[in-house]
């Protein structure tokens, strides 16, 4: 999954804070995230990079989804939005509440296709808007931030095993355990059926 986030270059602190909030949220996903907001960081899979080089298809056309901060008039905003519409890619178009993006002078909200979600945001609710959008994208996995403290006493053998699996890796023992539990949840048919029934209710 590849996401591109565009925020027009700005010196305004509120805009820069918004960009950081959006990037923090995007880093919680398992997607390759590219952006112009942080020294133009480009992150794509090796396969996409190689394919783009060989076929000369722009990386832009390899993105699966876009997030555009379009509060200000910027030529690239229109360009990216046009591509998102043409490629039918799920797109979140954000603008600060109280502003009227120039884009709506040329294309009304009603004319925008359903896969373009337009949201007027306030900074306090920005991360929820981003999470809400990301959760609609098929194949997107968002890693919720662990917030519940859970104390677990373990045996020496388990401790030794955890050390063996995480030593000299970037993974902490806690992260390793969380991953194993999440995998078990994915494989547990009974749990998955239960979740499906709950969602229907």
């Amino acid at each position: 999954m590849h996401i591109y986030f565009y925020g027009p270059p700005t010196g305004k602190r509120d805009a820069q804070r918004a960009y950081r909030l959006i990037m923090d949220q995007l880093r919680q996903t398992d997607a390759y995230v590219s952006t112009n907001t942080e020294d133009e960081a480009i992150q794509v899979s090796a396969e996409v990079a190689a394919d783009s080089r060989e076929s000369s298809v722009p990386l832009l056309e390899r993105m699966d989804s876009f997030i555009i901060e379009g509060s200000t008039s910027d030529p690239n905003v229109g360009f990216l939005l046009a591509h998102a519409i043409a490629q039918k890619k799920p797109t979140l178009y954000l603008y600060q509440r109280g502003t009227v993006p120039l884009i709506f002078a040329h294309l009304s909200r009603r004319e925008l296709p359903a896969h373009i979600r337009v949201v007027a945001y306030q900074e306090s609710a920005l991360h929820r808007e981003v999470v809400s959008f990301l959760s609609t994208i098929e194949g997107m996995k968002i890693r919720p931030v662990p917030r519940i403290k859970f104390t677990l006493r373990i045996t020496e053998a388990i401790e030794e095993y955890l050390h063996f699996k995480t030593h000299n890796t970037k993974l902490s023992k806690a992260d390793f355990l969380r991953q194993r539990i999440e995998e078990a949840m994915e494989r547990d048919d009974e749990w998955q059926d239960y979740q499906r029934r709950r969602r229907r209710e």
Partner: protein
Amino acid sequence: MFRRTRLAFLFAGGSTTESVPRPGSSVHGPRDVEPWLRRLAELDIIADIDGACIASGLAPVGLPEWQAMTAWIDRHYDAYDGFVIVHQLATLPLAASVLTWMLTDIGKPVVVTGSSLLSRREKRAGVQADPWLVQHSSDRAGFINAAQVAVSDVGEVAAVVGNTIYRGSALIDLIGQPLEPIQRGVLGRVDFGIRLAGQQLRRRRRALRVRPIFETNVITAEYIPGVDLTSMVPIEPGPRGLFVSAPGGDMNLPTLIGQLNQPRIKSLPTALYLTRRPSIALPAHVVVVTGRDRSVAVLKFMWALGQARGGRGWKTALRSIATGAET
């Protein structure tokens, strides 16, 4: 007061956006233009766009169509901020070169591009294209890229193929070549935006001067050792120029020069197409033309003769066009 950018899209084939034929998926006549623009409504985000159909694209697009395009641009130059030529891929590289010469003094962008898809009608008509161009061209996305270049700070003829923006006259020489990160003749690239390398001629206010005249009464011949060139040059009606290809390099030149000095040929403006500049002196009426593509060289000669209109200025006109890769 904010003024929206206005672009003109001129169609000559190469417009197909979908494999399934639907109203607006291709432009083969004037009535197809509005449905096509409605189907690509996302272009409205970039600029206000008007369209005109120059050719159906169901037959090879060539000199008459290119002259029609420049005439249209000349008539409407002040009304638009930029022009996009949607062009059949088969002759797109030639078009990009020819338009560069005909619109030498242009101060606005003229962006040539074309779709890799073919409509059913185009397939039935036998329209084909260079496989490299087909592989590297986009369809719908390419038109967005071209529109974005046409609103940018470019003041010359450019071609957009895939993710690369070429100087119009350079495309023919760079097709199929691996590109360096910084490459003469490459004006920029498309990745997450249009990135111009800084080589481009920028927009500037100037009165457009169109130079559309080509002298097509030219004999083209390939020199074969032992075959008398004069037998290929008719007496009546007399040609206005002679274009000779000489494979074999310097080895054939002494004999060839002897032939070019024969009375009937000596008075003819002559272009000698070689793979590289020769080391020996040539007669005064002969100018060497080089380049990867012979068709471009022929057209270049015809254009130069057209500028001189029978006078001597054809050599100056010919030398004034360097290919984009050489500038």
